[in-house]
């Protein structure tokens, strides 16, 4: 089994996250204190485009949260606000509050570099560096200034084990990461992200570029990882959201339509729009 070096939450501290009967988003935000990720009346603009219109959400720790919605609904924008990856876009502007573990990430003087280490991200297309497998996983640690060889290699091994990739790559750590298959590359990207010990992992359609087998492996991994990490997954695939998530957020045209326990959302959605979307009437 996975050997644990250290992780933000001890597994013994886990509580059942999802209440028996999920309350509305507002009461959920209050009930779930302390939530790992939260936004309050959060607005996001790309120049003149109003991409997020007053989103308030509270994501509980150590669980998988899926964000679903049609293309352009703002789900990736919301995801990328938690680690401020949107900062790279010229003309981007925000209003309102985004919190990670209670800290306002858009406050002046926020250490964005430290924030991004704590809030890891896995992207739609696997994007390993054109370096060796080992160097990919060690990258973040090297950037933190970790030099000790034996500690580096034990952390690399540990991260690869947690990402369920160790057995496949242990004999070729010095080979280029680009020689791996797409699914392996994506798990390598997850291992690379785990190596810097994040509290939160954001995943932007992590399986949309993968074949069904590789997708299944990534989904299994997500479910395994949620005992130690808070995971937010943006997905186009509603079946995937149903399979892997504890709670689901449905977004439409920059607004959060519904946020609830996944089981409940897919059986008895409150909003008509949610029902129409998950039954495939649009989107």
């Amino acid at each position: 089994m996975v050997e644990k070096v250290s992780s933000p939450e001890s597994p013994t501290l886990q509580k059942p996250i999802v209440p028996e009967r999920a309350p509305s988003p507002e009461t959920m935000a209050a009930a779930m204190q302390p939530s790992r990720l939260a936004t309050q009346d959060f607005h996001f603009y790309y120049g003149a485009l109003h991409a997020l219109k007053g989103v308030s959400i509270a994501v509980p720790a150590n669980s998988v949260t899926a964000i679903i919605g049609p293309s352009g609904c703002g789900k990736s924008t919301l995801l990328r606000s938690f680690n401020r990856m949107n900062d790279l876009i010229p003309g981007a502007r925000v209003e309102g509050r985004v919190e990670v573990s209670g800290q306002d990430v858009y406050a002046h003087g926020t250490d964005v570099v430290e924030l991004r280490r704590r809030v890891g991200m896995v992207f739609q297309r696997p994007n390993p560096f054109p370096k060796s497998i080992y160097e990919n996983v060690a990258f973040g640690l090297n950037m933190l200034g970790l030099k000790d060889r034996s500690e580096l290699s034990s952390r690399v091994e540990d991260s690869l084990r947690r990402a369920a990739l160790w057995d496949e790559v242990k004999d070729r750590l010095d080979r280029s990461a680009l020689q791996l298959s797409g699914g392996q590359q994506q798990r390598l990207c997850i291992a690379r992200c785990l190596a810097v010990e994040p509290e939160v992992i954001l995943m932007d359609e992590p399986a949309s570029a993968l074949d069904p087998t590789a997708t299944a492996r990534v989904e299994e991994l997500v479910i395994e990882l949620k005992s130690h990490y808070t995971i937010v997954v943006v997905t186009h695939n509603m079946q995937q959201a149903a399979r892997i998530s504890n709670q689901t957020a449905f977004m439409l045209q920059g607004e959060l339509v519904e946020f609830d326990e996944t089981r409940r959302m897919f059986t008895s959605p409150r909003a008509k729009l949610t029902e129409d979307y998950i039954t495939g009437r649009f989107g």
Partner: protein
Amino acid sequence: MSISTFDTTFKPLPKQRRFDLQGRTFTTLAGLAALFIALMVAVIMGNIILNGWSSVTWEFLSGAPREGMTRGGIFPAIYGTALLVLLMVMALVPFGVGAAVYLQEYADQTAWSTRAVRFAVNNLAGVPSIVFGLFGLGFFIQFLGAGIDRALGLDVVYGKPALIWAALTLAMLNLPVVIVTTEEALKTVPREMREASLALGATRWQTVRHVLIPQAMPGILTGAILAISRGAGEVAPILFTGAAYFLPFLPSSPTDQFMELGYHIFVLATQSPDIDATRPLLYGTVLVLLALTFLLNLTAITLRARMRASLAGRS
């Protein structure tokens, strides 16, 4: 709605001509142009190799010119050229890459100052090389060099033509090439790579240093290759800044003057007291210059091919 509601009768299409005259004419002309270029190169190379081959002996490569340049070898010029190009690359690549990284990764792309710098870089590429030579004389030697001498209370040490000033002048000349090729190389690094690095908690500088520059390295080398080819053959920029007609010793310090192959060719071709006696040496020198440039290029190209293979995951 039925399908038959729209008109299905078309006017007949014009028949395609079976003999494509325009196409054939163009293909023939383009082929001839390509052939002409290949022929020119073959004639030049053939002429140089045929006439120069017999002059290139060990004595020629290792000796110094004698008897008013009608005898002896060109070793001081080979040595000077190699040193000049080496110093130029050492000054040029860090400076050019730094400028390109700033322009591409840090500068506000819409700011007028960024556009002004880009405009200046592009115009620098169009300045004739003799102007660079005069600039080097005025700026590096008379201003900078003489200034250093004054400040240090020295006699004329820096304020005269020297290897270092010639190398810096050549570096100035080639700066636009390196900046532009490096910028292009940085542009081709996918956005995903920047995002991956930043999302792992790397700083902007760490991203530049450990992700972008390694991936842009083949492009940077392309710039260096172009600069070497051009730098080894340019005479005008070094004419006033350090090249010597003849030196009885090899340069041992950056403030020494030096002999250079391109300038030596000019000297052999125009300044010789006995042009017939010099001609074989002239051909030999041209052959050596070409071979040296080719060798330097080949080294850089091999290095670049290896880097590309490693970046593509074949290593």
